[in-house]
Structures are given as structure tokens and as C-alpha cells.
């Protein structure tokens, strides 16, 4: 079970958190301008990488804040956590 360093609360058990899928997928500002394919790309397509992945997490049983995490899915090492809107601190 991960020990997650919530950017607002500090280290907490994984059981306090909820995973929220891939990060940095921005909702299009003008959805009506998009073709079906472009909208489907936003709506459905996710990378699901084996290796370093950027993810959204929510401290659902804590401060309820969403934040981002960089995690290596092959060994579950958490490389970094950072707030929404911030640039990833690692590549």
C-alpha cells in the first residue's frame, strides 16, 4: 500500500485516496467546434503506460483536494506529487 505525500496534508495511507486516471488531459474549451473523432480522443483515449505515468489523485477521505502524481507503474515508485495547475517537477 502506497504512502502518498498529499501536497496539502503530508504523508498518508493510500486507503485515504482515490485514483483519478491520467493527468494533464485538458477539457476542450470549445467542445462544439470539435469533430466526433477529436471529441472521442478527449473522451475515451488514455495511454495506460507501463513505466512513468502522470496521474490524478484525490485525497477523498482527507482534504478532498485533487492533485497530480508521477508514478512508475512498473514498480509503483512515486516520483513526485504536485498541485493541480503546476508543471510536473520531473520528466
Amino acid at each position: 500500500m502506497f504512502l502518498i505525500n498529499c501536497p496539502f496534508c503530508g504523508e498518508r495511507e493510500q486507503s485515504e485516496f482515490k485514483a483519478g486516471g491520467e493527468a494533464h488531459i485538458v477539457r476542450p474549451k470549445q467542445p462544439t467546434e470539435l469533430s466526433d473523432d477529436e471529441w472521442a480522443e478527449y473522451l475515451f483515449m488514455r495511454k495506460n503506460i507501463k513505466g512513468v505515468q502522470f496521474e490524478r489523485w484525490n485525497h477523498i477521505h482527507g482534504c478532498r483536494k485533487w492533485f497530480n502524481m508521477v508514478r512508475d507503474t512498473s514498480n509503483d515508485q512515486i516520483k513526485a506529487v504536485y498541485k493541480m495547475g503546476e508543471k510536473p517537477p520531473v520528466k
Partner: protein
Amino acid sequence: MSNSLRFKTSKFIDETYRVSFKFNNKTYFGFKGDTLASALLANGIHLVGRSFKYHRPRGIMTSGSEEPNAIIQLHDNSSRTEPNVRATEVEIYEGLVASSQNCWPNVNFDIGGINNLLSPILPAGFYYKTFMWPASFWEKYEYFIRKSAGLGKSPKVADPDIYEHNYIHCDVLIIGAGISGIIAAKMAAKNGFKTLLVDEKSYLGGSSIYDNSEFSKINNQITSSWLEKEINEISKLENLEIKTTTSIAAFHGYNFLLARENLTDHLPINQRNGKVRQKLLKIRAKKVITATGSIERPLIFDNNDRPGILLSSAIKKYIDLYGVACGENNILFTNNDTAYETALSLIQRGIKINAIIDNREQIDSKISYEVEKNNIKIYKGYSVVDTYGYKRINKISIMKLSKDGQKLIGEKIKLNCDCLGVSGGWTPAVHLFTQSGGKLKFREEDQVFIPEVYPSDQISIGSCNGDFSLDEVVKNTLSSIKKFLNIDNSEFKTIEIISGLNQSKRNIWLLPSDKSIGKTKSFVDYQNDATSKDIKLALREGFRSIEHVKRYTTTGMGTDQGKLGNMHALGIISETAGTKMGEHGTTTFRPPYTPLTFGAIVGRNVGEFFDIFRRTPIHDWHIANNAKFENVGQWKRAWYYPKKNENMHQAVQRESKAARDSAGILDASTLGKIDIQGTDASEFLNRVYTNAWSKLAIGKCRYGLMLNEDGMVYDDGVTTRLGENHYIMTTTTGGAANVLGKLEDYLQTEWPELDVYLSSVTDHYATISVCGPNSKKIVSKVIPDLNFSDEKFPHMSFKDSKINNIKCRVMRISFTGEHSYEINIQANYGKSVWEKCMEAGKDFNITPYGTETMHLLRAEKGFIIVGQDTDATMTPIDLQMDWIVSKKKYDFIGKRSLYRSDTIREDRKQLVGLLTENPDDVLEEGAQIVADIKKTPIEMLGHVTSSYYSPNLKKSIALGVVKGGKKMLGQKLIIPMENKNINVTVADPVFLDKEGERLNAKL
């Protein structure tokens, strides 16, 4: 007790404290400190069980948690009885009752033993191959197969014991209190680390604590004496917590471990009441030191499973620790030096050793010379080829091994014995290390897997790291711990070690036999009766992956998880397939390391705490008034209120009628309530709901529909504008938490620029809904301060008011189609206001109704229930709710998806009303809807989502989803049921009062 087998020399046995216990209905005696296994052995009992498949007689094989054979049923009552308990781990207490498993009528005469004779036709995969065909026969086979499957009996009634969960945080966790664990604990604790030391045994010191040999010394003291002093010293350290009888079950990532601590299992039953039996410890350690030791390997030869055959190290432990001899005429069979340590322990007490069979040609160690000096015959370069004796070994035959170890040569020699100790070297216990994600490497010299890559801040020391001799263990432990903890002070200034062992070993995974392999039974997995022959068969049949061979042969799949034989299975596979051992890897070691009780897993979460439920503030009233309850999410909701002799149907019909004829009252407190504030609150609602919110006047309410980004209906509810920048949103009962989560998600991640704050206030308010033609009269009495005239208080509006000085919010909204009011009041006043409503409504036959009637009433009006009439595939257009989808708004969640090529298809399933030809036929919810039953396969057009008998319309009504249903109004369809086909007509989903006359009637 057979005196000749008990030697009164052990410090661990209290000979003044005699303990009686029952095994297979016979009373025996042991001493305090004995395990069930040592006490049975002291009584000359080896035969304790039958094997799983062939029902072969089996005896105690080991002295610890790796035991495959001596698994017993503990306790004879139906509440505490526990199957598959290892006799080697149970401490005896006065009154203990245990029995053998997997045998009938008893362990000495077991009918199932016939399987042993049938074994030539019961190879690996027998069940898979035989019971596959004809498929229709499975039902006949199943009864017999199920009967013979499984070991032991599970308890039939509730467990009387108490279990707990505890969290532990520490700097350093040390797993295993053998010599290396003790040294590590001292170094860690003395250097300021908050340290936890755990061991699965009831004593500290591992196998070194009974190492009394002159040939292994530390600082010129016998190892056990040196270690005893160290243990004495560390037990006084403040920084160190020690837990015995505590077994680590799982080692997860980020140094999170689960352990089971046994607290009362050693006590007589009458002393256990009110005490916690086991604790599940959830340990988060900054650093973990694994010192789990190693497990002795057996040797794989024909008939290597008879009672009386034990691991050589177990024989040593039984005599040194418990003072029990496992036999009077012993033979040891080994491929390495450790059997000679056992020999010396036996010699020391004058116990007879008939011979030592050593498969090595050359033996060169101090202890082997010492054994030879005692005139014990050592057969060098020999192997055991067979054993004899059905319920107890009485003879073995041996032959000389060829140079390559693959063949036998020379004459067969027979030797008598009543106990055979085997030693195939040692396997590091790397289970926990690999569970944590660690990677192993294979060491060719002595054919062992040892830790290589650590996935977290941890280290393995001692023999689980592949250090087997005393000097290696101590010296490497000292240097690794210094480095691992980054300390200078080792606490051990000078340390001098004498070790009489030599590391030489002749590893042969499968010893040759003079018979053809088909005629041998060389057991690799004792508990599951998997033999070397089975493994070779699996390879012949094309299995290559170790994971596949494991599942096909069931090797390593017993309660012991193959702690003894897994390495041999790997070895035989690689030898047979001609591959390298290290290339196969191992099978996956999964938690738990040793079985956990369900009690420990659930802890205190039993009974009403197993799945906690939420009660409304009016719950007690519902109970007092005979409500039946329904689970909705975590909530208990009143379902219906049967009067004397009423069944559910009758109660619901009465409630539904009363609500429309006069007045009904519903506890709606469970609806989710989200308080929304901020200058952008209106804009926010515009974006999350499909309809427009900017123009909603203060004091007005509006129904809203919420979609997912994929355009599918997610939730619905009424939202009220309390002020310029203040709304209160209601959600469905089950959806409340998810809706709040979804809204927070958008606010925090997509629209952080919006000034909006959300708070869940579901629990803060009790919500009482009063509906029906007399509702206004009733609420006017309850809230006399408020003007209820239709002009001042029209439908879809809200008023602040007070009941006896307590603030309340009243909404005029309706889910039934009746004139109705919803009173929201601080939760703790909910019950008293409810009672006031009941009192005020007495003259109007006010009738409490539950969720079933609520569902019926709304179905009459064609109102959907999200989750019942919708699943995650229904758009608002599919629901014929186009009216609520704003055409003007540029964007809202899900808007773009409403005109994807798929969502605009006209043949999507759409919500329609269904009326049965016979008004008394009530459809089954979930029933299939079809048009043509003659053409096969019959095309399924949809299904029934809601169905009731309406007492107000005096006919059956239903809602359903039908492909292209919108255009099928008036069309006849068929609901095929088991006994008949029901004819239905597609209708408007609004069955009652489409014009809303009842809602707007002047009262």
C-alpha cells in the same frame, strides 16, 4: 507417556506442569512448553493425518510453520473449531482437543486409502481430463467431487473470540528473532532507532537458542549461552518492542506489512473469555530487516513420505528444545553437513543411530569426524532408494550412486529403522522479500535463490540471505546492519566464531530409483500428493512455464504453499527440460505467508459493524411503526409500513391510494444535499446541469439533470436558489457522494477560476415530504407562521420559516405529482416535526409511505429514477426528456456527446410506457421486450425497468426501454415469460394527470 522417548534435559519444557489433551478421542499427556507435535512424538505417535489425494498415512515432518502433513482440526465444538492447523505450531494447554483430517472412518483405517491403489489411473490432471465430458454429466460428477474436495471442517456457528486491528509505526522492523535478528535488534535499538522485533515462535533465538554443540561457539561460549545473554540484554532496551507468536503475513510495497499476533491460543479455553485472541497488526516501517531464516529441504526419493520420516533439523529441534526423541532406531540421510549436527545431539543423549547415508563421496568436516568417532556407520556416496512400513517406517533400502548421481550401482542394502531424518540442504525463506517486490538471483554453487534487488528501504540478513554457517551469519549481519543503518557503533567489539560445519553439498533434485519412474512415488508436494512423476508428465504434455506446471500438478498449492518442495519442483523441471534453473524464476509467493483466520482479517468489523449503515433522524419512529426497511446505498430507508396481516403488496396499495386521496408523508432525509456558495454559483450550475440556471429567481426551485461527459444521465434532483450566490442542490440518495466528488473534480481541475464552494449537508437536515390534496392543511397547522396561499407560495418555490423558533426551510416541490411540501429542519428536530405532522394529519388519514410507494407514485407520473430506469447508456433524449436540455447554452458537461454519431442514432433504446392487454398482469422488472417471437433467434428490443399495479389507475403500468421506442406509440409488443407471453402496448410514460391538474389544484 513413553518415558523412553522423553529426555529431561530441556530448559524450554516445564516438567513440573503436566498437561492433558485429547487427540482422536484419546487422552494423552505432555508438558507445558510442548507443541502438539512434540507431545504426540513423545507419546510415540507419528501418524497424524492422511494425504489429500491418495489418503496415504502421513506423520509429522517438520517442527514449524512449513509443516505439510501434520495439519489437524483443532477444537471439537462448532464455534471455535479450526481446520488445517499445524500441529507443529500449536502450544498444548489443559483440555486441548484435536483430531486428524481427511480420513474416514479414522486415521488408522481410512476408506479413501483405496486411492493409493488406484493411483496409477489418477495422474496429474485426472479430474480435468476425466470429468470434461459428456458436459451434461457434470451435475452428476459434481456431488462426489465436491464431497472429496477440501480439507477439514469449517465452524458452523459464530466465532466467540474477539479480534483486533492495530496500527504500528516504527523506524526499524526486524522479522525473525534468530541469531541475526537478535544482533540486528540490539544494534538498531541501541543506536536510537524505534525498533520492533517479531517472531512467529513463542520463544526468541531461532535455532541457535538450542545450539549446544561444542563445535559452534561465539567468543568461546556455547552459542546458546551467548545468545541467551544477548536476549536478556535486549529485553531491557526501551527502544525495542518484542512480539513473539507474531507472524508476518504480508510484506507490501512502501514497507507496509501485515502481521498476525496470537495472544490466547496457548491458554485453556476457560481462560480466554473477554480477551483478544488475535491482532492483525498493520505495520508501517521506515526500514525493514528481514531475518526469516531458511527452511531445510527434504530429499526426493521413492516413498519419501512415510510416518517417521522427518527433516533432520526437526529431529534435532525435538530433542534439543523439547527433549523428545522421534525414534529409537534412527537413520539420517543427507547431502550436506547439517545432519551431523543432528547426529551429535542424538549421540549426546545416547539415542541410537543405526547409520548415516550421505550421498557425498567425500566428507571433510570436524563434526563428521566426531560422529565417526562414535562408531556410527556412514554410507558415503549412497542414496536411499525405497522405504518400507505402511503407518510407520520400519526399513529402508540403499544403493550406491553413480559418479554423475543419475544412476544406482551395486547391491541393494536394507537397514532397519523407526525414524529417518532427511536433509537436502537449506532454502532461504525469501517469501516475504519477493512479496515486497524484490528480485531474486540464483546462486549456482549451492542451488539457492537469494535476494538481489530490494524494492524499498529493506535488507535481508542471515540464512534468508544465503548465509548458512554461523561465522558467515554473524559477520555478514554485523557489516550489513552497520551499512544499512549508517551506524559506527556495532555494539559487538570483538567476535570470535568457531563453526564445525563445512559448506560442501551434493545437490541432486530427484534421486535415482531402481524402478521405472512410473512405478515410483517420490513426493515433491506432500500435502497435495504431487510427485516427481506428475511433474515429468506435465512437461511431457507440453507445459513449460513453472506457473502452468504448478497449477496442472497442484505443486505448492496446499495450505503450506509448497515451503518444502517448490525448489525441487523447479529443479526437476529444469533438469527434465534441460534448461537452467535461474532462468525459470520461481512461482509467485503470495500473501499470506501462513494462513490467516477470517477473524483476524475482519477484526472488530463484525455484526452490525461489518457493513455499517446510516439511519435518518426519524429511524426510531419507523421502527416503532413497524416499517420494513430497504438498503439504499449505506442508508436504511423505510420501504413500507404493513399493518396487521398486510403483505407488501397490500400495504403499498393502501399507502399509494391514501397519498393521492388525502395525505401521505415520506422521510426523504436520505436525499443528498449539497450547499453551493460563491459568486460564480449560477455559472457553475449552468455548466453542470443540462438546463439553464442564470435566470432562476431567488426563492425558486428547479429540477436539474446532470450528465457525464459522455452524455449519459448521471444524477438528478431539485436545486433551490436561497440567495444571490447561494444554492442548495439535492441529489439521489445513492449518488450523493459521487456527485459531490464529480463537482469538486471539475471545480478544482477544469474550472479553478470559478468562485464556488461546496459542502455536503446531507446529514445536517431532516427532510419530511407531505403530499396529497390535504397536504396544505396539515403543514399549515405545523407551521402556523407561514403563508401557504398559492399566490405567495406557488409550486417550485421555497420559504424560510420557523417551527417553535427553530429555523426550517420549506420547499413546494413534488415527486408524486400531488400538491406537496418538503420541510427541511435541523436533523435533531426531525423526529419531533415528523410527529407534529402525524398529529396534524390525524383527521386527514395522513399515511406514512415508504420507498416502494414513492416509486409507484412517481411511475404513475412517468418520473424516472436514475439508476432504475437509466443505466450508464441513457441520454436525456433517450429518456424523452429533450425539454430539459438547453439548446441555447454553449456548453455543459456532456453536451458535445449528445450529437456524436452513436448518440443520435434513432434506434437507440428509449424510455416508453407499457400497458398490458390484461390490466391485472403486472410485468416483471427486467423482463425482455420483443416484437416477433416466431423468428429465431428472437430479437431483443429492450427490457422493463419499472413495473407496478397502480391502485389509482386500477391497472398495471410499466416503464421500459425499447429500441426506437419513441416512434412506436400504440404499437403492440410481447413480453415472453416462462409460462406465457404477455401482450403490451407502447404508451406515453406519463400515465396519470399529464396536464398537472392535481399539482396545481387550488386547495
